[in-house]
């Protein structure tokens, strides 16, 4: 599975400003609502509910909020690079500045899990993350995300 299947270049916010985790999730929900045509509230509630179960901040300044929604047609990704990192209650207590939001249809099952673990794997690659942090160009970010990080591919 390739991340370019999950995320569109249009879904990349290269320099987002947010002051808190809540505001960040709101902004993401707002953008996701535009893209999927779903009510913003519903998206926000879904991802917030997942955050209550345990922060999706996976460490190293990265968070992967996600959730399943009945109204989503296909697995949809959204990526934000923050100007200033925000507190995210992450595993390692580091503030987060790279966020990949993943919304999946209710019935996505295994594809959903596969997509999530793929995203986690790509964002675990130190080089990829460093390259993304160093640019504000959505096209460049998209291509870094779509690369197969060789060191983690097998």
């Amino acid at each position, binding site marked *: 599975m390739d991340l370019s299947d999950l995320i569109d270049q249009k879904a990349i916010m290269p320099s987002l400003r947010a002051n808190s985790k809540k505001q960040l999730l709101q902004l993401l929900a707002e953008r996701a609502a535009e893209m999927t045509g779903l009510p913003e509230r519903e998206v926000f509630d879904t991802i917030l509910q997942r955050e209550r*179960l345990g922060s999706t901040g996976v460490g*190293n300044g990265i968070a992967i909020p996600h959730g399943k929604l009945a109204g989503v047609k296909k697995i949809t990704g959204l990526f934000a690079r923050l100007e200033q990192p925000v507190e995210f209650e992450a*595993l390692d207590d580091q503030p987060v500045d790279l966020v990949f939001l993943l919304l999946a249809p209710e019935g996505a*099952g295994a594809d959903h*899990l596969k997509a999530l673990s793929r995203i986690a*794997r790509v964002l675990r690659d130190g080089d990829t993350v460093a390259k993304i942090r160093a640019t504000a160009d959505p096209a460049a970010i998209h291509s870094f995300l779509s690369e197969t990080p*060789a*060191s*983690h591919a097998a």
Partner: protein
Amino acid sequence: MFEGVYLVTLAGTAMVLAAAFSSLIAFRFGAPLLLLFLGIGLLAGQDGLGIPFDNASASYFIGSIALAVILFDSGFGTALSSLRLAAPPALSLATIGVILTAGFFGAFAFAITDFDWLESFLLGSIVASTDAAAVFFLLRAGNLHIRERVRNTLEIESGSNDPIAIFLTIAFVELISAGAAVEPGELAIGIVLGFLREMGVGVFAGLLGGRLIVMFVNRLKLDPGLLPIFVITVALVLFGITGAVHGSGFVAVYTAGLVAGNSGMRSTATLKRFQDGISWLAQIIMFLVLGLFATPSQFISILPVAIALSLFLIFIARPVAVSLCLLPFRFARAETAFISWVGLRGAVSILLALAPIIGGLENGRLLFNIAFIVVLVSLLVQGWTIGPVARRLGLIIPPRSGPLDKVELELPGSAHHELLAYRVARGSPVARGGRIPRWARPSLVIREGRSLKPQDAGRLLADDLVYIFVSDRYPRLLDRLFATKVSLAADDEEFFGAFTVDPDHLASEISAAYGAELREGEADLTIAKLMLARLGGHAEYADRVQLGPIELIVRDTDAKGEIDSVGLSLEPQELAPSMPLLLTAGEIRDRLARFVRRMRAKPAKTPDEPAPPDAA
């Protein structure tokens, strides 16, 4: 007469020993070992030491048996999981790829040689398949860590493409020796029908034979020394019977090997060890015999043409065929290039080159000599450069774990546990004093030659030898604990899962969010309670609970032994499938459906394969 026995034995064993010794050299220099074997055969043959051997039928016979043994072993050693990962691209290469390669090569041969069309395509078929022995050896001996999907594709391709080349070659030889004028249309139909029949019968016989082997091994309580002989003999019986009813015996033994090797039957480790040995012997003998048979002094006159053909095969025919075959599968360009480059020809091509001689074709010897040179060039040019090419293409990935000393033993009567021995690596998490999950506690520690009870050994030290009984879900995680120099950080995804969940939330929430499979009455428990229940009332650091598609991991417990942090892994360490069926009907249907869906959604893009399940 009696003297003769000793002489032949002496000459034969001397060659085998020379070949065995040469393997040491090959491992050290990464030289294509098979080239050395072949070289020893050549040296001993007519133009070298002068052993007269010119019996094409005998060579073919010995070679076929040897090949059947090798194919059975390579099927036996192919894990179902890697087959699933790489079967579609590999089979595309092994069928269409072989035919395309033979076609391109044949057309070029027709253009630059005096052969007629049929002979040209015959030559194409002879050199169309890649050699399992060469590919396996060079990928493994070179210690090349490449992406698993690429490696599996290459290995499965090379293991499964021989039967098609064999079929094509024999079909062409029969056509030519019959000498009748042929209609191209009729010819094509005849070949396709014959092909389907051979493959169909072969696969069917292989599935059946594989099951039979499993049944025999499980039911008959044969002496452990006799068992491997019995199994390999049954495989050869299968080879014979299938061939006699016009099926492909090679397909049959390969399939039977797959079925038997993946069945989880008893004694699998013993069989594997024996077959490794017998497969080496088969390779050595096959190459020696083929080397003996060849007469290098005949090569000189055809050298330029043969080299031109080889280069065409390496640089044009194979790459074009590979690119076409891999179009529907998503491979990076560098990976496609690498797969093209690992188109090593080998013993099978030389073996097949005997067919025209046996068939009494006028140009038989010429075809043989050309094929022989093509194989030599391929082994030299491609075989020697696999490592540098892989590095150049940026395909080498760092090895997953540090050096590892691991002995797998077989436990009678247990399908899902094994006893592993590890040498504790310097700098590994346990040697640094890290905690040892209870599923990784050794049963025995050997330190400086003394056996210690684990409780007497205290903290594990580097170079301790530990013996651990373990469920077969865990070995990869054990590798991490005992063999890697990387410390276990809290965000180690493989060990603790990608995400964390709050143990005080309800189990039904993870079931809603991730499709975790719960048993009756578990939905209302908290995650901590659920895990505790599944773990038998007592949870410890790094304990794991699998809930269908996900796995929960105890990241930590508090002073009272309550779980206070839980990791969630999306890639549970899977149990090896125990059913020898390759794909169930349901899976095939799912895959087709997914394929169709993707094709519709994205006409230009193509289906891709599930990400490697064990990728890290």
